């Protein structure tokens, strides 16, 4: 049993990548550390459980990375996906720090492997965790335990006592009521609020009922809400999140990677009116992978259907549920309550607009439509070889961007612009500082590890002084 009557140097709230990096780095700097993970042990680690890689800058190829990925290139990628909605100073700082994380995280027991089958396009930029995100977490927890970090699971924090930018204590729910935990510093690494449907509804309305949450059901944003309610400065657009189109048959929470569909570019996407609504061939996977969640969220009933034919069935990564098959377009439509005539017309119009070209899904090829609105600008091929297939898709929310503003020390900033005395934040709870919108594969883990490590170090130093 952890002695909760003592005062810890560093209290870490959360249990994912950012929290553990903070806990380990604080402990290594000599601080006593208590980690409060809200989930039970099996579900520990929040969305980190579902991750698989991290994007770090590096100047030369490594054992597992095929070539250099410079700070400048990383920055340009970030600038492009966010459309400039990022804090340049903080982002460049994070990118610089990410270089060292490649080694530091290995010293904490995490193991790398080359990019997984089906993800070769990330082979140069992203380092993959051997065994995936839960393997990474297991390694971090093992290291933290060996270093003497105290960890409590099922540890729901009910309230934070904060006075004028100074953290004093946290109230922890116990079976017999609540217990007050004191610490010299706080590291908030408790994730976003994507699993809190009611909170999502504040920004999305009833549409949020049709969202699927790809990760942990424990990210309800309670810590974030407490902090914002006690004077911490907010950052990020509350409607912004990393959302992809995932199989509509996925469970409401925690379906993870296996419900994602990589096949948009191989077919067309229609809504409940059996109408197309966006250029499926706009850009290459995975660059445009992340836009489809928001696109589907904007459609009626937040559902859409990816339609393709038998010629491309094995062209993309398999997923958990098989596609729905039918011998004709009309039959396929009837399986989803779509108007058969409308879908036949949409597919017919599309097929008629397809121009001849040389198909190559690895580049922006010359297979495109002409005279069609919206167009399909690449990889457009006729859908004409039965059986026909469809995947129903819904928005799958991965993580949210609304967070607490921080500085380079990962120290929270208060609404008055002053830095908090002893409060730090890392991970998804402050991702919005760097990621105003959009997404680049593996960047969530970069944010978590870089700012987690810094937050732990800074908190330990503050506690010692």
């Amino acid at each position, binding site marked *: 049993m952890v002695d909760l009557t003592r005062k810890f140097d560093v209290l870490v709230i959360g249990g994912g990548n950012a929290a553990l990096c903070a806990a380990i780095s604080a402990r290594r700097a000599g601080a006593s550390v208590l980690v409060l993970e809200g989930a039970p042990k099996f579900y520990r680690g929040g969305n980190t459980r579902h991750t698989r890689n991290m994007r770090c800058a590096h100047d030369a190829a490594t054992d597992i990375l095929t070539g250099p990925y410079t700070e400048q290139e990383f920055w340009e990628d970030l600038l492009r996906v966010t459309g400039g909605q990022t804090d340049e100073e903080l982002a460049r700082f994070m990118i610089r720090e990410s270089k060292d994380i490649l080694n530091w995280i290995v010293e904490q027991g995490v193991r790398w492997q*080359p990019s997984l089958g089906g993800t070769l396009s990330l082979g140069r930029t992203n380092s993959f965790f051997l*065994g995936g995100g839960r393997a990474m977490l*297991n390694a971090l927890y093992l290291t933290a335990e060996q270093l003497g970090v105290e960890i409590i699971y099922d540890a729901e924090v009910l309230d934070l006592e904060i006075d004028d930018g100074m953290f004093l204590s946290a109230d922890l729910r116990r079976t017999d009521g609540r217990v007050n935990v004191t610490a010299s510093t706080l590291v908030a690494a408790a994730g976003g609020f994507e699993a809190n449907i009611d909170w999502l509804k504040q920004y999305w309305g009833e549409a949020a009922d049709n969202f699927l949450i790809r990760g942990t059901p424990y990210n309800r944003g309670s810590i974030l809400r407490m902090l914002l309610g006690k004077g911490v400065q907010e950052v990020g657009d509350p409607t912004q999140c990393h959302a992809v189109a995932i199989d509509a048959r996925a469970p409401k929470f925690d379906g993870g*990677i*296996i419900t994602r569909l990589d096949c948009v570019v191989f077919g067309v996407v229609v809504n409940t009116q059996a109408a197309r609504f966006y250029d499926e061939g706009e850009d290459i996977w995975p660059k445009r992978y992340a836009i489809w969640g928001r696109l589907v969220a904007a459609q009626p009933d937040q559902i859409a259907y990816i339609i393709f034919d038998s010629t491309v069935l094995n062209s993309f990564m398999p997923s958990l549920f098989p596609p729905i098959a039918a011998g004709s377009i009309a039959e396929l439509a009837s399986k989803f309550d779509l108007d058969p005539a409308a879908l036949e017309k949409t597919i017919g119009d599309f097929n008629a607009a397809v121009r001849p070209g040389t198909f190559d899904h690895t580049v922006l090829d010359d297979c495109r439509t002409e005279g069609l609105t919206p167009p399909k600008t690449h990889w457009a091929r006729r859908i004409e070889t039965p059986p026909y297939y469809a995947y129903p898709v819904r928005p799958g929310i991965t993580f949210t961007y609304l967070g607490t503003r921080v500085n380079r020390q990962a120290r929270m900033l208060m609404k008055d612009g002053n830095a908090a005395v002893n409060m730090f934040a890392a991970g998804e709870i402050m991702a919005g500082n760097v990621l105003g919108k959009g997404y680049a594969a593996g960047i969530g883990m970069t944010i978590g590890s870089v700012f987690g490590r810094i937050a732990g170090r800074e908190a330990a130093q503050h506690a010692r002084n």
Partner: protein
Amino acid sequence: MHGTRILEEADRLMTVCNSCRYCEGLCAVFPAMEMRRSFSDGDLNYLANLCHSCGACYTDCQFSPPHEFNVNVPKTLAIARADSYAAYTWPRVFSGVFARNGLVVSIVLALSVAAFIFGFAAFNDRQVLFGVHTGPGSFYKLMPHNAMAALFGAAFLYAIVALAMGVRAFWRDIGEPIGTLAGPNSLWQAMKDAGQLRYLDGGGVGCVNEDERPNDRRKIYHHFTFYGFILCFASTTVATLYHYLIAREAPYPWWDLPVVLGTLGGIGLLIGPAGLLAERWKRDPDLVDQTRTGMDVAFIVMLFLTSLTGMALLLWRDTAAMGPLLALHLGVVFSLFITMPYGKFVHGIYRYVALVRYARERQMMGHGT
């Protein structure tokens, strides 16, 4: 769709895993899976026998129970694997033996030991059985060498034939051409992979056993067991060659090759099985096919007893205990041979040939090693 419910479950899991692939760096099973989009019974039996049951994929899996996707690859493949042993059994009438292996082993053991003692008594009078015999040929005062060689040769030959027929059934089931087993590159690669237990290490950090902390204990104990077994086998082979080629008769002095090999192997076969049993005892029940505990344990115990009786014979061969100890040792060895095709021993054979196929598939896919 599939022949059994466990293969249905294995198919479901491989569909989940093929959509995820986070575990592809952990062992051979997942890369082999990725070469396929759908899975026949034979494919699943191949994957089941390729799995070394290191448990890493279970501990690393975000979808393992209590998650609703309920992904437990080690346990599912362990059950499918044991089912496949029974399905490939030759002759077919013995396929039920796997299920009762723990019991069968003890009965066969007891019967054969009894038969030996009875046989000795019939061949020789009691005085010979409990007398003190020393010097070359003293073992054969109890049982003539040719009788011993014929009996064990026959048992060994039978085991070889039964195992070969099992491999033939496995090879047909997975739909692999016979030519693969003649490819030197694949054979050699598989020998290296098996010899170092390359896939019993969770992708580099070791097996998981009782909790999420990986370690190398099972691998090390397996090495003790396997190489101990090989050394003992080498000892017997050298002794046979001595006997027939240079007419040098057992028992041999302590410094002679058969005794040195046998002693080293015997030590391995004491430490290894004891360690494996201890690890088996601690192992997270979620990772094992609990209905087959008898089969697993019986084989480990038999190996241990083989060594224990052999070492006892070595220590007390110059005393009146030699007769009964020799009878006991030969009884255990005989029982080990005769039950080999119907127990846990076959895991090594099927896993090896599964590794041969994997090596060939990798070569065909243009991968290195």
